[in-house]
């Protein structure tokens, strides 16, 4: 969690608004991880959709309003970098929209979360304090209202809405496939349950994990191939 910035001026509403949105998304990421951990595919996909929508809206008002307003010699480099990090995140969001399996969704959301955490830290520790210094209260004042109005407008237009429901159906089919897995896979599942305490199952894992033999995970390989065709 980024440190609170020290400043003589009280925190401007615009910066508070952006920080509040950061906190909100961080909490949603936690919720997503919980749902993914519990293999609650439907909930995970719903949360992924909400997170991506919020991120898209947030990035848009920053790019349209906050970043241009904060532009100065002091902030130029950080603003360039911030905009590039937005591009990276948007590409991940586009991938999330097409995630054809729960495993892939989890992997993508994990990368997205880490990139956002990094980006938020840079904004809160470097960019925001500089912007606060650079902008007078008169300049900073109207930004919050401006951003809030734009946010509502964009929301109404449905910007950032992500429909990943059809992918959820593909995910469900995968779950059913798991039940058809052969005995060897059931053993693997048992070994997997002990995974966090590796010592206990070390021997079992050692055997099943023998990575030289790719045939050890036939179900997953088949499923991946299937998803490819389906998508």
């Amino acid at each position, binding site marked *: 969690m980024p440190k609170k910035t020290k400043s003589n001026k009280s925190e401007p509403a615009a910066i508070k608004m952006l920080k509040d949105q950061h906190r909100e998304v961080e909490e949603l990421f936690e919720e997503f991880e919980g749902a993914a951990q519990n293999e609650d595919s439907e909930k995970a996909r719903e949360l992924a959709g909400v997170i991506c929508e919020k991120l898209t809206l947030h990035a848009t008002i920053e790019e349209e309003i906050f970043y241009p307003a904060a532009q100065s010699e002091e902030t130029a*480099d950080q603003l*360039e*970098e911030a905009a*590039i*990090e937005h591009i*990276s995140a948007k*590409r*991940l969001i586009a*991938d999330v929209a097409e995630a054809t399996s729960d*495993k*892939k969704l*989890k*992997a*993508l959301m*994990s*990368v997205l979360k*880490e*990139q956002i955490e*990094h980006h938020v830290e840079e904004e809160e520790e470097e960019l925001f304090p500089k912007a606060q210094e650079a902008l007078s209260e008169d300049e900073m004042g109207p930004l919050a209202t401006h951003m809030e109005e734009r946010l509502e407008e964009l929301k109404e237009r449905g910007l950032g809405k992500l429909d990943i429901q059809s992918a959820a159906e593909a995910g469900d089919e995968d779950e059913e496939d798991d039940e058809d897995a052969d005995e060897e896979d059931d053993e*693997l599942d048992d*070994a*997997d349950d002990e*995974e966090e305490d*590796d010592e206990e199952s*070390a021997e079992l*894992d*050692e055997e*099943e*994990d*023998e*990575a*030289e033999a*790719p045939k*050890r*995970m036939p179900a*997953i390989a088949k499923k*991946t191939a299937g998803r*490819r065709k389906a998508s």
Partner: protein
Amino acid sequence: MDAIDFLVKHHRQLEQQLTTLKRSETVDQNAFDALADSLAAHITVEEEIFYPAVKARRTEEILLESLEEHLSLKRVLADLLDLGAKDQKFSPKLHVLAEQAEHHHEEEEEHLFPKVRKVLDDAHRETLGAEMSARMTALMQASPRDRVRSQTAESAALA
């Protein structure tokens, strides 16, 4: 050489190249191309040889995440190759590449490699390291960076 030692050593080399590039006032396109080749070859060797060889129940999740991080890196790398070192946006983009690469290395070294040590014994890792080293040498002779642009649509499959 042990496969993990080989990759860790190469991580440090890549980071050093990135740091040098970031620090230079004007980036030399040739120096960047050399970094792009090394990074592209590293990613290819991991995706072709290392990841499939270490795939197991306990590594699958982190491998899938690693493949998405590779995709993110390849996209930034392709952007940089398209921009060219003289472009104004090159420097901030290079910073993002360096940060994403460092983060990815950290995750592999802290989370993936310890698991790999349990999955593969010393002898296997030694053989794997030799295979990776040979493949890396071969790749480096054919401008591996040129292949990156065609690999930005989706993450590599975990073969």
